[in-house]
């Protein structure tokens, strides 16, 4: 026993045995084959179970083989590596499945007719109808929310970065952080409590107000980060030329960081475009076209998806519409994201580093 312990300790990583480079792949392949064997033998129908068995075998196999050949420390390292890979693969599966299902089932009814017609009198369980009313509603509500939320957010960020000293700035910073965590349904309830007090009926702009509340902290955070990236030399150069501070901010600081600010705003728009809960409480939904966000119930894409799912009692036509609307919504959000990132890369401030 004692001699074994001594000989175990002596070899260092330079002299001890090494597994060949292909060994992780070999172990992975082996564990998949064994897992398939077990799965077939035990009659497990679910492929998910096969995968989990394979993952466990892979981690265990790596540990055992590496301990035998390379020693404890290397084995731990290899186990960590394999765990990280397994975690990555586990996470990828649902995410890929989500995108794949949405695209596959979404394209079924997604055509120009679907995009240019409202539901009208089409019953939830019947095929036909479209999302035109929902697109109009979403665009108006999100647009109005952006008109309110973006300027306030940017100005607050300017205050925090350019002027913010003392208690007020610290309070604002703290509450912006807190506000980021306000659930969307709470923002909806807040506006709802106002509407209850003023005895108002649901309408689109109420939803916009809730969305604006959700948007502001996101815009503040991202704009703040961008303004902090602007080199101080630029501000000092401008101030040294005698330019007033407000003109320095408007003409030097904001233009320098405009790319990042736009990106932040677009990402915030992408976030609020998918919010359902406040719309459900405040805008109600409507199967007809209502172009006026200031009066009467409207529809919005996320709410449309929910209602097609929830009110249809399992009709395939409604599910198809829900998937198609999901695909439209995801496409909208993704395009916003891609464009925003494009702008960020194109207009990135030159920090000189």
């Amino acid at each position, binding site marked *: 026993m004692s001699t074994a312990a001594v000989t175990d300790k002596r070899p260092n*990583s330079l002299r001890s045995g090494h597994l060949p480079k292909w060994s992780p792949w070999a172990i992975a392949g082996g564990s998949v084959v064994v897992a398939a064997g077990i799965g077939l033998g035990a009659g*497990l129908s679910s492929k*998910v*179970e096969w995968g989990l068995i394979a993952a466990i075998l892979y981690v265990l196999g790596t540990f055992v083989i590496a301990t035998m050949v390379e020693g404890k*420390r290397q084995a*731990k390292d290899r186990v960590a590596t394999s765990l*990280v*890979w397994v*975690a*990555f693969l586990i*996470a990828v599966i*649902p*995410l890929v499945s*989500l995108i794949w*299902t*949405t695209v596959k089932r979404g394209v079924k009814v997604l055509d120009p007719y679907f995009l240019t017609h409202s539901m009208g009198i089409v019953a939830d369980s019947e095929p036909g109808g479209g999302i035109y009313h929902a697109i109009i509603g979403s665009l108006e509500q999100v647009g109005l929310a952006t008109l309110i939320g973006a300027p306030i957010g940017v*100005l607050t960020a300017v205050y925090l970065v350019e*002027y913010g000293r003392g208690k007020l*700035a610290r309070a*604002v910073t703290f*509450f912006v*952080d*807190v*506000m*980021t*965590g*306000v*659930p*969307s*349904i*709470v923002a909806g*309830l*807040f506006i709802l*409590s*106002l509407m*209850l007090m003023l005895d108002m009926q649901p309408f689109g702009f109420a939803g916009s107000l809730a969305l604006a*509340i959700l948007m*502001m902290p996101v815009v503040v955070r991202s704009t703040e980060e961008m303004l902090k990236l602007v080199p101080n030399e630029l501000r000092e150069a401008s*101030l*040294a030329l*005698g330019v*007033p*501070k*407000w*003109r320095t901010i408007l003409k030097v600081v904001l233009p320098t960081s405009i790319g990042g600010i736009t990106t932040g705003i677009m990402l915030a728009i*992408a*976030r609020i475009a*998918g919010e*359902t*809960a406040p719309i459900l*409480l405040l805008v109600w939904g409507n199967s007809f076209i209502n172009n006026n966000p200031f009066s009467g119930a409207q529809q919005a894409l*996320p709410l449309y*998806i*929910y209602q097609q799912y929830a009110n249809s009692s399992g009709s395939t036509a409604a*599910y198809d519409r829900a998937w198609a609307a*999901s695909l439209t*919504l*995801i496409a909208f959000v*993704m395009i916003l*994201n891609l464009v925003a990132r494009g702008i960020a890369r194109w207009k990135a401030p030159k920090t000189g580093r």
Partner: protein
Amino acid sequence: MDISTKTTDASPPTPQPAAAGKRGAARSTSRPGDRIFLGLSRGSGILLLVIMAAIAVFLTYRASLAISKDHGNFLTSFEWNTNIDPPVFGIAVLAFGTVVSSVIAMALAVPIAVAIALFLTHYAPRRMSGPVAYVVDLLAAVPSIVYGLWGALVLVPHMNGLFGWLNDYFGWTGIFSWDGGAPRSMLTVGILLAIMILPIITNVSREVFRQVPQMHEEAALALGATRWEVIRMAVLPFGRSGVISASMLGLGRALGETMAVATVLSPDFDIHASLLNPGGGTFAQNIASKFGEATEQGRDALIASGLILFVITLLVNGAARAIIARRKEYSGANA
């Protein structure tokens, strides 16, 4: 413009005598433009504070209306009958469901998210990590209702196998017993929430791991550490506060998540020991599901439950901030 050419000094004194006279010498902002701009930006900062205060005040007011009429115990009643007179409702079931589903989500999501963040920063081949990080970014933007639709129509049918297995081997614990009904239960909700908050936790953790000083890692490597030891000794200690804040962000989202829970869960108003049998509810889900049929009195009751949710998320976020602030003082490096 001619004013600006006259000021040769930096900011403090301005050549406009009227403005300089009115304001104290210590104030640097005495031009009208400056004052207006400062007023605007400070005003929007104050507006944010006012909105937060207004949320608290209005929710509390409406909630107090509802709770004063409540004939049950608001904290312990296992009932939500708001349309009868007098109404009987309580939040015990909702609080339980919210905590359980969020705990499941965190237990599943945090380890995997940290692993993915490590994968992206330290393990993945360089050619792979860029696109994968990009995909994770995009997935963070997928609307929750789409997750909900996917969860209800794709994830739920796939849970039967797992539920059966859990029931066979762990059913004796009571937590994993299953009566074979549709798997629209707290565990499914927790798994779906875990998937939803995964991208956020991953993104924030990744940013933190990326900021680990190269020197620390190289020093560890130079001492002969394996890659795992580098991560354990240099990367994780540095990133701990970041990971905590990322997890709290995820937790906040899981607590307040509405639509995904509302589509997947088949709710009732009881506390179940089993995570696999359908039933239970969360604050947000209950608001969304009960809102349609609620009278004004019922809406006030829902607002009261929303107030509790608001307070919980405030506490979670405040705690996260406090942890980060304290960690920052100790770790000399902050980003």
